[in-house]
């Protein structure tokens, strides 16, 4: 294959050509309620060619890799059409030529575990969820593993073969005490690791079920403005969704007004706020030793001491904005061209303990785990999986329907305490952007305290 890829690139008349060929083997076990919904092993083989000709991008995606040569020509053909309509030719920032093979490090290699064994494990978790209370009416328990081998080559001489493992586990319990009251509790896990990621999760399953049942008797939060403490899970999702996406340079690089808001050196938070995107920490799902343009990983400070320090770049955005590529051009698969994405994103630990953060809050909300969230530029909404009221510095009653909303920049400025307990989560889902979902990422944070957060409710 290596010879065929290099030959196809050598013959191409475009100014820049890259080829990515991917093989994947994956399996899934999915239980809903008492039924094994899916038991599957699937495989994938496909490729993508991206050509730059006269400053226009042309892309061809295909499964039949014997057609590589023709697809290189097709990508060049459409690149020429794009160039005719593009007033501002694309160019790429320089990147070192790399020739490397990156092997996966798996503990207990899931490729050597039988589908039957995977099924038995997931069935046992499902049984724990279902049997923990007669008010558990449904479950959603899903195990996935994927092993990808991605070959990347470009016309500058880079040739990289990477092995990318990914394992996830989702444990959801749904409890009900009547049609008007349906609640859920969940735990999620995801790592670039082996089968061990999914093992020994019995206690987590029991916790998910207990939380679903507890939420049946939780009180709906009353809408209004509160001092809020986010747990590391929810704070991680907040910093990824609300702020991290803003730092993705492909979102800004053609838009002067947005780029101006994100000028390097702008003060966004208090001096103890540090936000990082780090391309490799052993075992994390977001790991990207080399991105899908062949650029090596970085540890990038997005915010350092409260000040915007860097954006995340592809070679195209780095060239346009006069920056250096950061290794953040990622694609979920061969069906997509790389776009600027996060990897492992987190708020660095501060020095406050949770009890110190709680003290002196007369009336507040402790919001735990993200159930969902969406952002639109500086506006965001997140729903917490559950929460607790804070009364006179202490955690009180359990709360449900905790949906937080606000303005990103005001909220960053309103973070007044950062905890000392940073935790990272890979989760069982992934990040979505530009039609590419789910991309494995990790995010995390310590506990953070925010003043004046609007919480919706009746």
């Amino acid at each position, binding site marked *: 294959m290596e010879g065929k890829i290099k030959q196809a690139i050598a013959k191409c008349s475009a100014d820049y050509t890259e080829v990515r060929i991917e093989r994947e083997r994956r399996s899934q076990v999915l239980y809903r309620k008492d*039924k*094994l*919904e*899916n*038991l*599957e*092993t*699937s*495989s994938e*083989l*496909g490729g993508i060619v991206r050509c730059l000709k006269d400053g*226009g*991008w*042309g*892309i*061809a*995606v295909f*499964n*039949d890799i014997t057609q590589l040569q023709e697809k290189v020509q*097709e990508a060049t053909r*459409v690149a020429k*059409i*794009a160039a005719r*309509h593009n007033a501002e030719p694309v160019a790429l920032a320089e990147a070192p030529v790399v020739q490397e093979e990156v092997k996966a490090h798996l503990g207990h290699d899931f490729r050597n575990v039988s*589908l*039957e064994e995977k099924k038995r494990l997931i069935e046992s978790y499902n049984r724990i969820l279902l049997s923990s209370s007669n008010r558990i*009416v*449904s479950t959603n328990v899903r195990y996935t593993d994927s092993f990808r081998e991605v070959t990347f080559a470009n016309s500058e001489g880079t040739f990289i073969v990477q092995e990318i493992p990914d394992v996830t586990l989702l444990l959801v319990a*749904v409890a*009900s005490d009547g*049609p*008007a009251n*349906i*609640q859920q509790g969940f735990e999620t896990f995801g790592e670039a690791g082996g089968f061990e990621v999914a093992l020994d999760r019995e206690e987590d399953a029991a916790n998910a079920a207990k939380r679903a049942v507890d939420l049946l008797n939780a009180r709906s939060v009353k*809408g209004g403005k509160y001092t809020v403490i986010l747990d590391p899970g929810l704070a991680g999702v907040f910093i990824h969704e609300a702020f991290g996406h803003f730092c993705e340079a492909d979102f800004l690089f053609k*838009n002067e*007004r*947005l780029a101006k*808001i994100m000028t390097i050196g702008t003060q966004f938070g208090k001096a103890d706020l540090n936000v990082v995107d780090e391309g490799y920490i052993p075992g994390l799902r977001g790991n990207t030793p080399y991105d899908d343009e062949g650029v090596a990983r970085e540890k990038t400070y997005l915010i350092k001491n409260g000040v915007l320090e860097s954006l995340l770049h592809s070679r195209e955005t780095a060239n346009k904005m006069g920056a250096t590529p950061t290794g953040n051009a990622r694609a979920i698969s061969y069906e997509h*061209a790389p776009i600027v994405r996060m990897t492992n994103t987190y708020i660095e630990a501060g020095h406050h303990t949770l009890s110190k953060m709680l003290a002196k809050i007369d009336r507040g909300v402790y919001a735990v785990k993200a*159930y*969902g*969230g*969406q952002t*639109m*530029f*500086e*506006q*965001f*909404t*997140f*729903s917490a999986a559950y929460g607790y009221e804070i009364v006179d510095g202490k955690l009180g009653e359990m709360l*449900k*329907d905790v*949906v937080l*909303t606000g*303005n990103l920049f005001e909220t960053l400025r309103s973070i007044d305490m950062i905890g000392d307990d940073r935790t990272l989560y890979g989760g069982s889902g992934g990040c979505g952007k530009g039609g590419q979902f789910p991309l494995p990422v990790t995010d995390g944070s310590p506990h953070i305290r925010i003043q004046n957060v*609007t919480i*919706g*409710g009746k």
Partner: protein
Amino acid sequence: MDALLKMLDGKVDQAELFHLCSRTTPIEFHSGKLESIKDKQIEGVALRVIDNGRLGFATTTDVNDLSGLIAAAIAAAAFGEEVSFTFPSKRESKPPQVYDASVANVSEEALIEIGEEAIARIRTADSQAEINVSIAKSVEKVAIENTSGLKLEEERTTVFVSIEVEKVREGDIFLLNDETQVRHLKDLKPGELVDRLEEQLRLGKTIVPAPSRKLPVVFTPNGAIALLLPLIVGFNGKSVYLGTSPLKGRIGDTVLDPRLSIADDGTFFKGPRNGAFDDEGTPTSSTALVTDGVLQGFLYDLRTAALAGAKPTGNGYKGGLFGGGGFRSLPGVGMSNVIVGEGATPQARIIAGIEEGLLVEAVLGLGQGNIASGEFSNNVAVAFKIEDGKIVGRVKNTMIAGNAYNLLKDHLIALSDSARWVHGTLNTPAIAVDAVSVVGQGN
């Protein structure tokens, strides 16, 4: 692919092969400039086998390794779930028109022109706006073959246009978007998208404070998804079977206001998700869900229908409730075209009758809150304040919350007289309801 079912002959009790060949040409404009042209040609196969009553599933895009596909599906079936359904045999159906040769043949240049024209028009209306446009044409050939003797094939075309407009000012970012999806090129009306976006840009120039109390809200067809999504989840035969739908056991009951009728119809005139059959080969049909407020039925795929003792409704789709398509996932209950019946009042007259309220065009955080119970809680993405029957400006940082079942049963003000296609699957009028909880931040 004929050979594949033969290879399985005698090895398993039942088998079904789903074979998809698609060619899609997406064209992307970013900030008014053409960014890329892509030619995407995908071929994939999915195999479901049932052996000793147990289900196994596997997919591949490696069409040279069909024996690997068969081995994977059989291996899964050895430990798979016991199922009691049979793959369907041939039934007569009246296929809707889903193929348009002019879509297959339209050039990249012609599609680029559609984008350039839309961008030029919006620029004329507002020179400050940043505009992103996606245009794609696609031709999909779906073939389904099974051991019950079914052998179906359908070629479907789609043209899709989506326009996003961003307006960035000091301390304010205003984002609008609209999209359309049709099977026939002559039905594509990108100018209507531009008209609507221009109107919203105009209405959104002034920002006004939103109050915090219970108010009437007019959901435009696009915004109505906030109310309709919980219902759509509730109509899913799977949620009913799992006991998570509040509609369980209520067929024949009045569950919504008598002015409301909702159906799912895979053959609906010009429906963007029309097809002769679903992803399991069951003929599509029109399924009444609610008629004059009374619950009529639910949506089913083969497997859920067998579990629930119901009839498959032709709603077995791959890719989730919104039918993301592709070949990779197992089919499950999904919508085809969801049709909400129109009312009799023009949207403008509904607005004119409201003393104080909101007009909601788009929300953030769709699906947030406990939607199984009908609860929704969303930040408004695009919404306007109504005062004395007139739109006075745009509201920001405002939450709306309520229970869709409750609002649509006891608080319906009116349905508008003109439905339109939104979100690729939904045909709905504007829906006005009273007593929605609004929490505004004042600016």
